[in-house]
């Protein structure tokens, strides 16, 4: 047997007409003599911010204990199987989300400041925030992945108009800001995300896309020749990994097609693009499946995921709630409304749990994909009824390649800036900054003494 130091390039793609599919980490990508070492060293770290709006019913979120995680409160019950993989953070505050003399508009402010740490300008015209921490990292990693970052959402990408008491929709409908005046709108349509991830950048005309659909050809068909060529060079383990990976892409593709067909039958004139599933959980799964694939193929290492927009009044008929989310959060202590918000919060956490499950089941080298991630799940408001910006609900899922000890609840001192967490995460992503937003220093993940 010949031992070679030649390896398949980590950023190899399967190419075909209109398609470019990145590859997951394969044994063939590391020199044979260095496999063990390279596996440990080479897996990249990823940073995700997944945002839920309108606050949380906090007494159903916060456990009544600190330290090692045990039984979780109702909203987080779905995350209980993953409690060893999460770090709950308490008392983080976004002061720049508060009114600070700007009056009403907490929803617009809290989402605008969430990743920027900036008190955004109250305006519907000349918007101004700051460069968000994800974009600072994206710029730093720009030449290392196909996409410096991905911005994903599920609800509303309007960039103009008044979405909250004089705050532009640009603040409520974006998390990522490339500059202080340039938000990066999230991709809502699974088809658009799919084509962004696996297309070769050529934008097909509607006619060409329709023709393609008529032929019912999978994107995998276009890269079939490349795939066969690669398979011939791979060992059995890599062939199995590749097969599983391409199958997952095909599954996503099928689901998108099913959604498009269903939507077209239900209402050909529906407002949402054809590819957006009407069902929340289905939409969530499609988007997170694609984020997972993007990580597997190292297409990006930075993702923001605006699960729904801040201030949303989306109903949740999927779970029998016809009232809007936002009106319910102003419950004024009424038990029936509190119950509805709790159900919505729990429903979101249920989707998160399913995604985390997938991330744990997705191998990467000798580890799980989740082990090379920091997935922050949280909100820019804690108590949505009173619009509080302190003790923001914050979970860090994944141990950032062993640099974060999970399975715990850490409660910081009151008024500890959320930007301290951003500094700590940027540091782990290789960006060392002295200051960010209103940070007072990098957050320590050690227990308070």
């Amino acid at each position, binding site marked *: 047997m010949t031992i070679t130091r030649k390896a398949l390039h980590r950023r190899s793609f399967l190419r075909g007409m209109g398609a470019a599919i990145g590859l997951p980490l394969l044994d063939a990508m590391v020199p044979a003599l260095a496999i063990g070492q390279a596996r440990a060293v080479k897996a990249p770290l990823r940073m995700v911010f997944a945002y839920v709006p309108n606050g949380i019913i906090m*007494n159903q979120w916060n456990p009544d204990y600190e330290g090692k995680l045990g039984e979780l409160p*109702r909203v987080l019950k779905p995350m209980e199987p993953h409690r060893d993989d999460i770090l709950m953070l308490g008392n983080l505050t976004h002061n720049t989300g508060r*009114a600070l*003399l700007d009056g009403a508009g907490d929803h617009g402010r809290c989402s605008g400041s969430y990743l920027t740490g900036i008190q955004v300008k109250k305006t519907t015209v000349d918007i101004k925030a700051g460069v968000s921490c994800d974009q600072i990292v994206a710029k730093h990693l720009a030449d290392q992945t196909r996409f410096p970052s991905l911005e994903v959402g599920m609800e509303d990408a309007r960039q103009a108009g008044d979405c909250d008491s004089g705050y532009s929709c640009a603040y409520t409908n974006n998390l990522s800001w490339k500059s202080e005046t340039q938000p990066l709108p999230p991709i809502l349509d699974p088809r658009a995300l799919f084509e962004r991830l696996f297309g070769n950048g050529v934008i097909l005309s509607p006619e060409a896309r329709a023709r393609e659909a008529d032929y019912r050809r999978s994107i995998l068909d276009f890269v079939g020749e490349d795939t066969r060529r690669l398979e011939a060079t791979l060992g059995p383990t890599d062939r199995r990994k590749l097969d599983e990976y391409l199958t997952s892409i095909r599954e996503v593709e099928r689901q998108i097609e099913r959604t498009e067909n269903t939507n077209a039958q239900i209402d050909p004139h529906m407002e949402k693009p054809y590819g957006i599933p009407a069902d929340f959980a289905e939409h969530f799964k499609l988007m997170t499946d694609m984020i997972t694939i993007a990580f597997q193929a190292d297409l990006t290492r930075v993702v923001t995921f605006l699960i729904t927009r801040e201030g949303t009044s989306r109903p949740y008929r999927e779970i029998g709630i016809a009232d809007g989310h936002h009106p319910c959060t102003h419950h004024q202590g009424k038990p029936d409304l509190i119950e509805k918000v709790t159900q919505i919060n729990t429903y979101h956490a249920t989707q998160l749990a399913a995604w985390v499950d997938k991330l744990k089941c997705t191998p990467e080298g000798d580890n799980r994909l989740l082990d090379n991630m920091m997935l922050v799940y949280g909100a820019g408001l804690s108590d949505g009824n009173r619009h509080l910006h302190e003790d923001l609900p914050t979970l860090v899922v994944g141990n950032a390649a062993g640099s974060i000890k999970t399975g715990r609840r850490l*409660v910081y001192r009151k*008024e500890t800036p959320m930007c301290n967490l951003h500094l700590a995460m940027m540091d782990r992503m290789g960006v060392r900054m002295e*200051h960010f937003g209103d940070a*007072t220093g990098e957050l320590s993940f050690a227990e308070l003494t």
Partner: protein
Amino acid sequence: MLRWLSGLTMQFPSRGPQPVGIVFDSDLGDGVDGALALALVYGLEGKNEARLISTSTTKSNLKSAAFGDALARFFAGPPPAAGSFGGGFQRTAPPMGMADNGKLDADTPVLNAVLDKKTDDGKPAYPNGIVKLNDTADPIALIRNAMTAQVDQNCIVLLAGPATNLVKVMDLAGTLDLIQRKVKLLIVAAGSYPEGTADPRVKADVPAARRLFAEWPTPIVAVGTEVGEALPFPGAAIEKDFAWAPAHPIVDAYRANRTMPYDAAAPSVAAALYAARPDGFKLSAVGAIAVLDDGRTRFTPKADGHSRYLTVDPDQKDKVIASYVELASAKPTPRQGGRGRPNQNNQKQDVPPPKP
């Protein structure tokens, strides 16, 4: 119609210019001076002459923070009457900042007397919510954040303790500009002027005091121990003017501080009164305050200086002391919370979480 309109006015009082916001940073529990000053600020707040926008202790001791929190709860007053503006909603206890300098400052008789006192049925006479470090706020972020919410030049910082917290605030990125914009005056109840013996508040952190007087970017008024001795808080008032409350934390603190009867030296109380009612005092010429290695302070007149020190106006002495008593012993007034919505703490108590 007119009656209806006047009813509306009662329900929704007009919001004119806000009174000055006071950042209060003090060595709570070291003697009774700081606690009296805090009580006086609550009195000013009740009369709408000032707003307490942040409270922190320079003592690295949970009991000191608990004492401050107990005072905040005591002075929060009853909720506004049902039917009035914000009726039925009690304001929540604000975060209590506490210095965390890595060492534990000592308990004091004042702290123990107030925090250990029990009601007849064995409950704390002065409840507080401070048990662990994370029940307190980071004073640096707390003070900075409080300033960010103020109208320009409508904030006074009142320091009645070591300068440890404030110099850390100055070290935050961009905060010197913020202070310059928001704060019109720093009042420091520490030192003696134009010079005298070393004040423990300065000796506790000489480098911080030195930096504060040299680098703080707004005018400074220092209130020395000599003012506190010349304008003491009258011990007789403790027995008389606070008697409206069956149990009053200031009374218990005062009694625990020294054997009664005595009049307590009160530089911080003078400083707090000066913040809102400056007419009863005189000021030195401008100059600079130097901090010597042994903790003594020395004032030097200087035309381009930005510091002054307070002096006693003998004609106003009785009036000043009467104001001390009037404000520090004032009954708490009803105050509404947040946006007039019940908070989740209330919700937790009043509305049991729905069963799954």
